[in-house]
């Protein structure tokens, strides 16, 4: 981001920092608008999902980097946070692929006449 330079010296130009924040806010809103537009468009499904996920990842990164100052902090903090984020993503992907490839799902639940005995 081009604003990195100014941010470092934010103390000296407070008003310009505020402007950068506001610009970031506008950028985020704009991306959201694009996302909204995409979701109503008639793009092919796969492409749309990729774009949507890509854009929200960009938003995610912007907020973390600028609003949460991660970009300007000690790298250690980035690593600590990324560790959780990456692990969460990996586990999500693993879980989803385990479930989406599951071929043992019996459709329609338990067959007729095999229900449990009555409870008492």
């Amino acid at each position, binding site marked *: 981001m081009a604003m990195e330079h100014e941010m470092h010296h934010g103390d000296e130009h407070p008003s310009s920092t505020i402007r950068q924040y506001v610009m970031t806010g506008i950028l985020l809103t704009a991306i959201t608008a694009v996302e909204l537009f995409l979701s109503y468009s008639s793009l092919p499904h796969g492409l749309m999902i990729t774009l949507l996920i890509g854009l929200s990842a960009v938003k995610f990164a912007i907020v973390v980097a600028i609003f949460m100052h991660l970009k300007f902090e000690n790298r250690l903090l980035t690593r600590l946070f990324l560790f959780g984020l990456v692990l969460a993503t990996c586990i999500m992907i693993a879980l989803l692929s385990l479930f989406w490839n*599951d071929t*043992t*799902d*019996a459709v329609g*639940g*338990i*067959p007729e*006449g*095999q*229900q*449990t*005995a*009555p409870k*008492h």
Partner: protein
Amino acid sequence: MGRSGPGRIIAIAFSSVVVGVISWLCYLAFVDSADTPQSTWRPMSDNTHNIHTVYEIVFWLAAIVFVFILILTLAFTLMFREKEGTTAQQFHGNSKLEAVLLAVPVLIVVAMMVPSFKAIAQNTADPPEGALEVIAIGHQWWFEFQYPELGVTTANELHVPVGRAVSVKLKSADVIHSFWVPQLVGKVDMMPGHENHLWFTPDTARDDAYLAQCAEFCGASHANMRFRVFVDTEVKFDAWTKATLADAAKPATDIVKAGEQQFTLSGCVGCHTVQGNAIAVGKLGPNLTHVGSRTTIASGVLANTPDGLHKWLSNPPAVKPGSKMPNLGLSEDQIQKLTAYLGSLK
């Protein structure tokens, strides 16, 4: 025992002997345990042979690590015990040695992994053409077996022919149970909402049943949820099929007749099917059409003898805690009749 020269050799020799003897005793106990009725080390089908091939590799590699580490631990303890006048050698590590020590476990792991992968592929492959299809349904706390091709439904005792692949679809009517016949097939769970599969080709027909037991905790009577597999010769299996397909035997004696009536009066018909008895179409309990020809009742907990039946009917939850068959408060007389009737259902 010292830390150099002969002392070192004595320590290692002594440790080897001690660990060797202990390991040997353990091995004897393992072999001894392998000779039990529900043993996991007596493969009697292609499935369990596949498993056993890996098992032996894995077991022996594990045994080598076991012996090796235990000998080192004991030997080092003896060799380097505190002694007057000696001091510890100060070193922080040894990169070459550490590299070797990294390589050895890697090799062991690879040696275990390769055959494991092969066995996974074998045992999760599709069953061969012409396999006998069975649907096994786990209930709290008994097993139902259906043979869709044959039209047979039975409970707790599975009959299969020798030499033909048996393909089992696993289902559950309530909670998770598991299908495990240690000598015929490795465990696969019966998952409610899912349909699991397994298959095996038994290679030895015998009169004794192959023992099996539910191996996933399923509530109060999990311990009492057992089943038996009979591997029959072709001829015997055909005979069994025929007999099982037939309607229940018609009552021949008075007491059996009375028992049949009692069976209706006591409400047994609401839960049990007896093929040929038009009112007895309940599905909540085991199919009793040929209950008399089973060797055990209540999923293997009681012998199928008049005594066993008597015990069961007088208070099922006392035999199997939590049993879904309630205590029906039957009188002695009623139990007598029912026992006679059930015994006649060969």
